[in-house]
């Protein structure tokens, strides 16, 4: 038994070292939540439209088109080099303008492959870039327009695309990928974004003292959440209450008032921030 304790202790120590290195030797980057479709509406000013394109570009393109030119071609001089490319005998597309060339390059990347950037063995006839309108990127037509506007702007060319009017149906993607807007920077902003303070007294959000609101006062939720449902911890209770409000209704309050679609509208990171804030005050 002594042997087990000795080697067990050694193993625990070693695992502790690896874990400590992972915590303290490596930057604790907080990865982005799943990408949500950028709001691109016909009411946007052109500067807003270009800025939206820059955000999409930073999210979807910059990992390869980093500006170093090692993983994918540089795009800073695209306003001039596109003409040389469409005149190249290797060009297999139909673009007649910079806008068309950019759109074509995003949707059919193999129409022209810059030398040295093709798939290995393809002789620079096949691009490794995925189509921007499908697969893991799956940008909407409006988002592709915005990226084109951003690229034209940064390359010093005239911006020739404009925001499209939003279709009557409202969204271009399935309900599961519904528009959720830009991520709130912190928990208080997230609570405001979803207008939680319209119905609840909340820590950090001033509401007229004594005002009678339709939902329970949540300022002391940190102390009470763990005891609301037997066997359920504070964090899970809060998650459950936000995503499935019909399951638990506080005594003295009318059931069915709280919207049940936060699961579709709230980013995972926003939910986590709100839960952290309400459960632990951080």
């Amino acid at each position, binding site marked *: 038994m002594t042997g087990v304790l000795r080697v067990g202790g050694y193993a625990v120590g070693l*695992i502790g070292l690896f874990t400590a290195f*992972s915590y303290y030797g*490596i930057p*604790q980057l907080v990865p982005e*939540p799943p990408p949500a479709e950028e709001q691109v509406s016909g009411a946007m000013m052109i500067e807003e439209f270009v800025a939206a394109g820059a955000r999409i570009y930073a999210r979807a393109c910059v990992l390869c088109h980093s500006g170093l030119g090692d993983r994918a071609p540089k795009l800073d001089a695209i306003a001039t080099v596109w003409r040389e490319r469409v005149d190249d005998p290797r060009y297999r597309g139909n673009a007649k303008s910079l806008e068309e060339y950019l759109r074509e390059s995003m949707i059919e990347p193999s129409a022209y492959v810059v030398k040295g950037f093709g798939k290995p063995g393809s002789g620079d006839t096949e691009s490794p870039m995925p189509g921007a309108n499908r697969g893991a990127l799956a940008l909407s037509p409006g988002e592709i327009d915005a990226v084109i506007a951003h690229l034209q702007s940064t390359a010093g060319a005239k911006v020739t695309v404009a925001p499209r009017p939003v279709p009557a149906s409202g969204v271009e993607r399935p309900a599961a*990928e519904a528009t959720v807007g830009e991520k709130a920077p912190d928990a208080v902003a997230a609570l405001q974004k979803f207008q939680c303070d319209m119905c609840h007294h909340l820590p950090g959000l001033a509401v007229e003292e004594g005002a009678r609101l339709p939902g329970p006062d949540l300022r002391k939720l940190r102390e009470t959440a763990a005891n609301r449902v037997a066997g359920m911890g504070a964090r899970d209770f809060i*998650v459950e209450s936000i995503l499935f409000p019909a399951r638990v209704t506080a005594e003295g309050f009318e059931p069915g008032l709280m919207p049940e679609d936060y699961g579709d509208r709230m980013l*995972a990171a926003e939910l986590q921030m709100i839960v952290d804030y309400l459960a632990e005050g951080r």
Partner: protein
Amino acid sequence: MKALAVMLLLVLVLLASGGGRALVASPSGAMAAETVSAAEAAVGHPGAPKLTPPDYPRYGGLNSRVVVWVAAQLHLFFAAFVLGVPIFVLAIEFIGWRNRDPRYDRMAHEFIKISMGAFSLTATSGGILVFALVALYPGLFAYLTGIFGPVMLLYALLFLAETACLYAYYYGWDAMQGRRKPGHILLGLGLNLVGTALMVLSNSWATFMMAPSGVDARGVFAGDVWAAVAGPLWTPLNVHRFLANIAYGGAIVGAYAAYRFIAARTPGEKAHYDWMGHTANGVAIVALLPLPFAGYWMTKEIYDYSQQMGITLMGGVFAWLFIIQAVLIGTIFLAANFYLWCGMARLDGTSRTAYLVKYIAGVLVICFLVWFTPHTLVMTARETAALGGAYHPVLGPLGLMSAKNTAVNVMILATFLTYQLFRRSMVRSTQSWMARATRLQVAFYIAAVANIVWLGVYGYFVPANVRIGLSVPQVATTLLVIVVCVVVDEAIASRSERVHMIHWGRMPTRAQYALFTLAVAFTWLMGLMGYIRSSIRQHWHVYTVMRDGSADAFTPTIGHATSIVSASTLVFLLLILFVFWLSGLGRGQAVASGPVAAPATP
């Protein structure tokens, strides 16, 4: 018996899922309301469901992702172990049979005994994983079952066959000696074939989730199961896991031998477990050497499948995890070499080549530091200004794959050289051609290192996709040296006189902790790399086809992820220590007459 019971339950779960149709209807009913496309109607299979948070049942305070993560990781640890051990057990048994040496037979039997102890835990953790998936991720499980239903049933049946083979192989060991030995070896071969088939079948589910094949862009299954199984990443993952399982099995039984060595009270026991530890370390190292190459192949295939996924893996947030990987692999190489260096104490007198150890250690440390150097640093604006840019002006270039590939190839050559020195210390050249052959080996080493370094430098002057391809000639160079040296060494050893006796058991206790270090680092590394492989799908259950709609559809912080890896490793090691303890019960007398000193036959 427990394994059989668990697998029967598994079969029942699969049958109850009815190929997935019964579970496709989500709690929200969102999928049922979808319009059936022409493609779906044509092939009779639905597309990938579009899940939302209510489609993921929650139970009490359980975090679904963590539950499935830990269950899957524990199952993989145990499965890798029980599939890896029989491969080298069969090889050891075969060697013992051909050489008529009962020591090999006894050692192989003891190895498989540990594997037997872990087998029920493999089945139990597998059962827990299936139930966790069904209960917590019903939509995903249903979709996968709809495609892989026949494969899963075959898997369950093969598991029963694996159970039968393993029990017959282990319990028939003593009865099938002498003239029956070939039959027993055939049984072991059958065990390994079934085990490998199990591994490749289950690999297909993981690779389908990373690089789906046999389905269209909406996830509609065309009906060809083989197309779904044989995806672009299937073969490289099969090769990688096959090698890794052997290395892992070697590392774990090495820890067992170390544990028994530390607890041993007689010279006979110490000698037996020292020999066992030496063999296990050899198995782990031999299987480890080609692993980086299998890893490169896997990564290359990932890039070929999706450059976006490849860059996410190597150039995004996951790149930092490869710095942790470098620490772990550096630990493994240093521990394995340290054990081999300590092993020279088993020989009579001082080894003629012992003076080289300090240089090899220096090379290993330098290579480790190169591998450890990150490419892109996360810095504040003030730090960036102080550094003069995003990359360190001197060390920055060492962060590129060219430098890392070079470092790992040289590390492998240095480790092989350590092993070679140990072997060559036992013999004395008796003929003139042997000296010339030795000089040829030295020339090969020098030329190989020069070629590897040259290719590494050349990599800085070519685009990234060409640079990745340069790892192939680097690897080929390393393998060529190993093959040539093994052939030459064998020729010399077979015609030379033995100059040393090996005193098994003459090893310091600290060397046994090196074996433990190998086991812990291997386990932790498997957990880490498994996490990376799985997480590069990011917010997709099945990449580009089926989105993760749960509240957990985000990549956790590195610290959180490694905490889960650590917890899984800890639980596994505690369970495996329990298995060690069980395996040691009632076998005190069996090794009392083991060899203390033996002629040098490495």
